[in-house]
Each structure stands twice: as structure tokens, then as C-alpha cells.
């Protein structure tokens, strides 16, 4: 049996995915990027293989994606995460009846991608170089509020009052604004909801730039944050399609591409 | 008795009376009574156009010059022969044309037609043979101008004993007009040969006349005088005036005919024609050039100052082309 792997080396986490000859997802694995990401990436990949009892030789083609894709020399090919994300989302979205718009929030960036029925990118937009509206923004906020990243979702729904307005979109200024709000005695719940809405507004603006069509697929780590999902849905005015494992869509896409590239050759 | 009937009486008498026959007979293009009908101007004098075909009216007049010659009311004896452009001869009969005796004939082809009247009478033992000739031109610009050159040459008739042939001017074409100051030359032929020393007289419309004798080649030349002096605003560039040329020749031929016997024979040939104001009479180079030069200078100077002024007012930067 031949297998194909996709490795997404992102700014905060390394994601690996393996598919079989029929394109079925065999397994995925997520690990923090850390400082020596090359070593970590290899480890993640190899651990994934051992978990599923796949020999290294059986993996016929590896496609790397993410910021570290160029430096991962073990890969057979590399692909930008936008394309990989589109392919992965298109494939994963089939379970939901097909998707045409993808919103991805990563550690350092956020993207909106429009794809055609075949999963080809027809348009995309990315945030500017600042970290506003990205996973990093959530990170900073969570640290300021002294709560875990995973708890943000629960806080979002826990508030009694309306979400507060966070004016600053910049992660650095938002930090001081949050501290100010805390000092004024506002509840963490309302602040968290405010942060989610702030990100949601930015994200939706990005999505509108590429044009929203059909179902909207939402992936990336922050897609696990129920509060953020609710805020985006609220701003967007429609339901989001969220995969089971939103972090690995891109790696899955890379793996699918690895398979089709191998079969094409 | 009205004047008119008296005139007719006088006329009929005059034909009877031999002394009248001494007056020259000549053809005229000028309509005797302007109120009759209408004619159109064309290159070659007045014509009547009937269904696109040019017709010429010519009236016979008796008398020395245009100023005192009479139109004839009744018929006159003699033959009227028309030689058309192609040289074909046709006898015409005269009749009443717009109230006076004359002929009317069609001129279908472009070019010169020759009309001859030959009339003779005897009185006091002198046989007088009148030969009145006219050389009308038919030309319409619509026919174009390419065919003109071969048609220009004058024709001679072998049917008349004494003939005056108008010589063509230099560069003459169908549009050429005889103007004041131009020289008109006539060749006098007797029995087809140039006749030297014959007396030729030219009468102009206002009574001026001049007589010269033909030279060895049989040619007599006249310079046309200006005899048209209207106020300038009434000046007409196309003011047509008749002239008539007489030439006579007397021989000692004697004999007798139905009219009696004679001891001498006198031939009297006439040829009529038209002349016009010369361009020199109404055109001025001086004023023309003055005006032209004025316009040129004025425009030139105006543009120069306009450019200068703009340069100053807008501080327009212009470059000196002199290196």
C-alpha cells in the first residue's frame, strides 16, 4: 500500500497528515513548532507514521506547506498554504455538501479564499503584515486576561452583559486597552466577547473582499474557539462549516496534492 | 396712315429703286425689336434653344453701319446658302423672324457656320452683286472643349465671287472675344484668290468707321476702338456690339441680264461680327495687387505682433532659431 503525506509547518504548530492511495485520511498529528522546527517536523511526521504503522518507504510523496515549507528538504515538493488549504477544504467540505468560501485564521495570518467547484483558487485575500485579527491576537488577549486559550469559548457565552467594543485592532494596542477595561472593572466574559467580535469583524471584511459564496468553511486553530465561531457567524449572517479537526485541513490538502502529483507522474 | 405702313411703303419702294440697292446688305445678330421673344447668351452670341438644339436668328440689314442700317420688312431676292460645320451646303429661305426679314436655322453641331446671301441688281449700267456673309458660332461648354482646335479654321466658299474671311486671332478658341484694342484681320478673296488693294471699311456700333486697303496678301487689319462709355456702375462686361466690314471690288465686266444691260460690275461683300469690352477696360491689376499685398502684409504684421505680444504678456518662452 502506498501512502502520501502533507506537512504544514506553521508559525505556531506543525501539522502532519497522511492519506492512502484512495485519498482517504489515515491520520493527522499536531505539534508545536518550537524553535528547531525542522527537527520537530521530522519527529511529528515520523511519530504519525509509527502511530499508524506505516513504513517510511511506503510514503511515496511528501508535500510541504506553511511558512517553513522551503526549508523542509525531505519533502518532494512544496506548495503555498493557500492552495493546500483550498484543496483540503474542498475535499473535507464535500462531507458538508461542498464549500466555495474558506476562512482560515492561523497563528500569524488570516486568509479568505474563494474556490471553484474543483477546489481551484479563484481569489484570495490575506491580512496585512500586522497580526491584528489572527491567532496571535487571541494569544495576547488570553495572556492578558490570565485565562487559557481553550477557555476563551466558554467565557464568550458566560457573560451577562453585551460584548464590549475593542477599538484597537492592533495586537499591541489591544493589550493596553484590555488592561484598561479590566482596571475599569469590566467582566472578563464581556471583554472576551468583545475581542471575538473584533476579530470577527476583521475576518468578515477580508472574506467580503474575495466574495462570499455558498457555504463558508472555517478552519485553523481558532476555529476550535466556539465563541469566535459564534461571533463570525453573527457578523457574517450565515452558518459556518467547521471540520472536526480544523487545524489539519491544510496538511490534509497538501497530502491530497502529494497523492495526485504522485499519480500524475 | 401710320408710320409703320409708311415705312413698309418706303421699303418696298426702295427695293424697286436701284439707288437703294447701292446700300450694302449685311447680317445682324441683334434683334430688331427687343420686345419680341427671348434669346439666350451663349459662347458665339445670342441663340434660341429649342429642345436642347441651338437655333440662330440673323436679320438682314441695309445700310452702311450698325448705327444707320435698317431692318428689312419684306423679302429680298437672291439666294441664301448655309454651309454647316461639316461643309455641307443647304439653301435657306428667309422670312419674317420676330417682325423683320431674317433667317432662322438650327446649329446642331459645334463650330462655325457660314451663311451667305447673294443678291444682285443693275442700276445705271452697273451690275451690283451684294454678298452678305455671317459666320455664327455654336458652342456649349457642356460639349466640352477638346474638339475645338480642328474646328477653328475659317472656311471659304466657292459659291461667292467676293468673300471676306475673318482671320483667327492668336490662340483663339470658342471662348475668345474680340475686345477693344484688339486687332481684327480680314482676308479678302476674289474668285477664291486674295485680292490686293481692295478697299475695306469697318463700321462700329456707334458709327466710327475706318477704311484700309488690303495688302499684297489680301489682308486688311483694324484695331477695334472703345466706343462704350456708360457710367461705371452700368458697365456691362458682356456688352455685345455689332460691327460690319465691307469690301468692294469693281470690274469692267459687261453684259446683260433680265434686269437690263450693264457696263461694269461691282461686288460688295459684307461680314458682320461682334465685339466686346476688353478685360483691360474693366480689370485692374493695380488694385488687385494692392489689395492682395495689403492682405498679405496686414496678416503678416498682425501675426508678428500677436506673437510678440503673447511672448510678453504670458512671458512666453520662445527660442532663437539662429545658431
Amino acid at each position, binding site marked *: 500500500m502506498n501512502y502520501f503525506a502533507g506537512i504544514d509547518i506553521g508559525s505556531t504548530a506543525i501539522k502532519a497528515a497522511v492519506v492512502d492511495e484512495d485519498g482517504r485520511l489515515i491520520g493527522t498529528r499536531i505539534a508545536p513548532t518550537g524553535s528547531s522546527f525542522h527537527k520537530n517536523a521530522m519527529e511529528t511526521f515520523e511519530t504519525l507514521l509509527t502511530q499508524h504503522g506505516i513504513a517510511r518507504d511506503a510514503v511515496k510523496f511528501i508535500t510541504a506547506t506553511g*511558512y517553513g515549507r522551503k526549508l523542509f528538504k525531505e519533502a518532494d515538493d512544496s*506548495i*503555498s*498554504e*493557500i*492552495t493546500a488549504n483550498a484543496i483540503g477544504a474542498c475535499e473535507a467540505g464535500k462531507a458538508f455538501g461542498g464549500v466555495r468560501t474558506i476562512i482560515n485564521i492561523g497563528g*500569524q*495570518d488570516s486568509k479568505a479564499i474563494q474556490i471553484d467547484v*474543483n477546489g*481551484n*483558487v*479563484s481569489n*484570495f485575500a*490575506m491580512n*496585512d*503584515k500586522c497580526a491584528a485579527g489572527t491567532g496571535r491576537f487571541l494569544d495576547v488577549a488570553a495572556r492578558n486576561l490570565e485565562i487559557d486559550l481553550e477557555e476563551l469559548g466558554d467565557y464568550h457565552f458566560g457573560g451577562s452583559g453585551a460584548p464590549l467594543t475593542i477599538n484597537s485592532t492592533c495586537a499591541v494596542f489591544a493589550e493596553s486597552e484590555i488592561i484598561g477595561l479590566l482596571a475599569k472593572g469590566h467582566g472578563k466574559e464581556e471583554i472576551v466577547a468583545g475581542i471575538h467580535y473584533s476579530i470577527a469583524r476583521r475576518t468578515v471584511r477580508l472574506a467580503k473582499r474575495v466574495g462570499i459564496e455558498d457555504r463558508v468553511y472555517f478552519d485553523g486553530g481558532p476555529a476550535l474557539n466556539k465563541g469566535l465561531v459564534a461571533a463570525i457567524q453573527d457578523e457574517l449572517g450565515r452558518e459556518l462549516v467547521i471540520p472536526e479537526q480544523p487545524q489539519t485541513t491544510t496538511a490534509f490538502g497538501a497530502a491530497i496534492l502529494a497523492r495526485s502529483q504522485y499519480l500524475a507522474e | 396712315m401710320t408710320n409703320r405702313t409708311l415705312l413698309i411703303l418706303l421699303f418696298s419702294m426702295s427695293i424697286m429703286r436701284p439707288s437703294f440697292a447701292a446700300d450694302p446688305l449685311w447680317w445682324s445678330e441683334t434683334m430688331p425689336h427687343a420686345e419680341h421673344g427671348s434669346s439666350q447668351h451663349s459662347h458665339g452670341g445670342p441663340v434660341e434653344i429649342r429642345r436642347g438644339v441651338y437655333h440662330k436668328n440673323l436679320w438682314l440689314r441695309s445700310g452702311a453701319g450698325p448705327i444707320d442700317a435698317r431692318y428689312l420688312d419684306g423679302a429680298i431676292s437672291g439666294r441664301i446658302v448655309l454651309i454647316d460645320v461639316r461643309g455641307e451646303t443647304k439653301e435657306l429661305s428667309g422670312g419674317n423672324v420676330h417682325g423683320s426679314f431674317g433667317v432662322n436655322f438650327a446649329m446642331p453641331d459645334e463650330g462655325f457656320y457660314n451663311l451667305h446671301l447673294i443678291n444682285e441688281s443693275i442700276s445705271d449700267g452697273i451690275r451690283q452683286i451684294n454678298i452678305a456673309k455671317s459666320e455664327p458660332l455654336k458652342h456649349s461648354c457642356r460639349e466640352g472643349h477638346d474638339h475645338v482646335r480642328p474646328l477653328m479654321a475659317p472656311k471659304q466658299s466657292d459659291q461667292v465671287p467676293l468673300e471676306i474671311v475673318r482671320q483667327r486671332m492668336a490662340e483663339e478658341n470658342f471662348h475668345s472675344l474680340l475686345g477693344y484694342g484688339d486687332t481684327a484681320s480680314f482676308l479678302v478673296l476674289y474668285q477664291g484668290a486674295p485680292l490686293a488693294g481692295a478697299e475695306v471699311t469697318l463700321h462700329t456700333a456707334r458709327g466710327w468707321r475706318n477704311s484700309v486697303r488690303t495688302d499684297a496678301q489680301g489682308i486688311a487689319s483694324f484695331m477695334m476702338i472703345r466706343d462704350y462709355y456708360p457710367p461705371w456702375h452700368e458697365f456691362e462686361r458682356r456688352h455685345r456690339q455689332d460691327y460690319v466690314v465691307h469690301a468692294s471690288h469693281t470690274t469692267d465686266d459687261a453684259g446683260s441680264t433680265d434686269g437690263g444691260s450693264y457696263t461694269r460690275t461691282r461686288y460688295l461683300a459684307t461680314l458682320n461680327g461682334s465685339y466686346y469690352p476688353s478685360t483691360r477696360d474693366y480689370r485692374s491689376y493695380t488694385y488687385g495687387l494692392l489689395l492682395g499685398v495689403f492682405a498679405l502684409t496686414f496678416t503678416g504684421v498682425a501675426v508678428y505682433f500677436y506673437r510678440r505680444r503673447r511672448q510678453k504678456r*504670458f512671458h*512666453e*518662452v*520662445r*527660442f*532663437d*532659431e539662429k*545658431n
Partner: protein
Amino acid sequence: MNTNPNEATAPAYNRSRQAREAETLLDRIQDDFPDNPEAMRYFYDLFRRVYCQGEPVKHEGTLVGTTCIHAPEELIYAFGATPVRLCNGSYHYDQIGADFMPAKSCPLVKATLGSLHAKAAVPNTQALELIVNPTTCDQKTKASAMIGAMGYQVHDLELPPAKESEEARLYWQRSVRRLALRLRELTGRKLTRKNLQQAMARTARAQTAFRTLHQLRKNAPALFLGKDAFLVTNAYFFDDLDRWTAAVEQLNAELQLRQMEGFQAAQKRAPRILFTGSPPIFPNLKLPLLIEEAGGVVVADETCSANRMLYDMTAVDEWLLNDMVDGLADRYLKPCTCPIFTRNDDRQRRLLQLAADFNVDGVVYQAFAGCQVYEMEYRSIADVLAAQGIPMLYVETDYSPDDMGQLSTRIEAFLESIKTRKRNAR
């Protein structure tokens, strides 16, 4: 990134920050790509000498700085002076220039100000006796007084904000004639028919060489990479006119040879990119380099550091000074597709025609953060390109290298989408 400053042989100058910036880029241009044309060596060496070793700019007579393509250089040459284009691409000077201009303003103008302010700037223009500053965009217009305050003589060459009307044309012609007066004062020489004719002949020869190069880039597969093309046109800013022309003619000859041999400078299916928007000026060739490193090839451009500067040629009807100068004025105004002008349609049409002529697969639109006119024209350009089915990537960036990673992702994704599109089209 790939840095290997050759410190052993380079002089001390090499240690300055901006020299290192230039060095890094030159290394990337030279070493990261195989099969650079032999004739490009002249340009690589030229940039190393001028940017890394601080060689003074070669010139005859007075050196006259220009801050935009609208300054008619033939006039400057005709007065026996040498023009040097001061538009700067260095991040180092951009940061210095930030002292003069708001941080959010155009990096090009900031860098220009920075380089004028810096001592021993690069390119080394020594003492500029006059700077001709066309009043193009707001930032260049306002830079005039700042340059003046640094002690330079500045001539504001007034440019109308629209170019369609006859009034604008006449206004500009007057403006150019006034520049001639100023140059006469400066040089003390007279403008003659012969001088101007010779100056025009020189630039016409240079433009002819450029046009030949431009046409050679129509070839598919590409004979020549865009990064080199930008380097060539950037050299025109400061290089000796005749020397530059000869080098380009040599390059053309080599490319023609390549054409006959069926050479490929990039992959056969490499997406052909039309570059438009804010000008890539050495050493800020970030975007064209990223495109070509990601496997695309820049086959044509519509920027004022290359095509817009050199493509359009002067026509003269009567070889009289007045007609020649007016003809020059027209050439610098009428065909210009700079977004500072009121209407956008000439630029739209130019892009569509370039896209058609060069068989372009996609357009990359660079807008310098702070260059509002390019930012504002983005939508209208995007619309006409979309109507023709030509994909476009809009990139807002500046001279800082911070966004390199993110940009490379976007560019790669863009090229990948073009490739899929082409695959599907087949």
C-alpha cells in the same frame, strides 16, 4: 537569506548598512538564478561599483538631479549637463527619510529625501547643482521645500493634474520652456538646434535599444528574467547614457542569439507576469525577485522605473527648436500612465494591451504603502482586468523586508492558481 558579503576584498564602504542591502540583493540576483546572460555582467558590476563601492556617478558637465520621469532629460543633455534620477529604493534611506515625512507616506519619496540628506549617499552624485522636481504626486510636490531646506537648488517643474485637455498640454509646454530658461541660467549655455538634436538622438538610440529589449521579452518561452530587466532600466537612472545604450545593445544581441538557439530562461509553463504599479527601484527589487524565485517570470511591466520611463518616444515634425521642445514636452506628458493624472483609462488600456501583446497570465500590482494614487486606482484596474479574465494580485508593501515571508506565500499561491487555471484551460 542568502548573504555572503565578500568582506575580504571589499573596501570599508561595504560595511555601511545600505551597501550591505545592495550587496545582498545583487547576490540574490546573480547567484540564485542559473544562466544569467553574459551581457548582464556589465550591469551587475556597475551596481556593485556604484552601490557597494561608492563609485561616483559618471557625468559630463553639471549634474542635474531629477525626481521623476517627467523631467525632460534631453533638455538637460542639450545644455551640456547630465541628468541623474534621484528616486531611491533603499530601505536604509527610507528610514532616514522618515524624519522628514510622515511614516505612512511613500517609501520612495522618503528614501529619496533620506539619500539627499545622507552624507556620502549612494549612488554618489557628489554636489548636485540643481534638482528638477516635477510636481507630480502630492508627496513629491511637498518634498520640494524639504529638499530646498537641505540646501539644494530646486526647480519645481509644474505638471498639470490632467493631461487630456489642450490647456493642460499648453501649460506643460510652457512649464518645460521655463525649465530650459532655468537650465540656461545654470549652465550659461545657449540652447541650439544642433545641441538639442544631438541630445535627442542619444536618448532616441537608448530608447530604441530599450524597445528592442522590450520586444524580445515577448518571446515565449522567456529569454530573459524580469529581475535583470529591472536592473537594466534602473541603471539608466545614473549610468552614462551612451555606455548604457551600448551595454543594452550588446544584451539585445545576446538575447537574439538565445532566441535562435531556443533558449529558455524560465520553465516553459512558468506563469508570465505583467508587473504594474509602484516602481521597483534598486535595491528594492523585492517583489519581482519573489515572483521569479517562486517560478514565475516577469515578462513586461508598466512602471515608471522601466517601461513608462523609456518606452514612449518623441516625434518631431519640424526640426526647429520650438517644435522640438514642444515635442519633448508632449512626450513627457501625453503618453504617461502615471496614476496622478485625473483619468485612469490610459493606464487600463495600456495594461490590457501589454497583457495581450506579451501573452500574460497574470498581473502583479504593487502599491507602496502611502502611495495613495496607486491604491486608489487599484479597483478600477482590477475591474477591467477581471472583465478580460486576467487574474491580478494586489500587493501593498513598502521597502521593509518584514513582509517577505507573507508576500512569498501570497505570490506562490497566486502563481499556483494561475498554473491550475492554465491546466484547466488546456
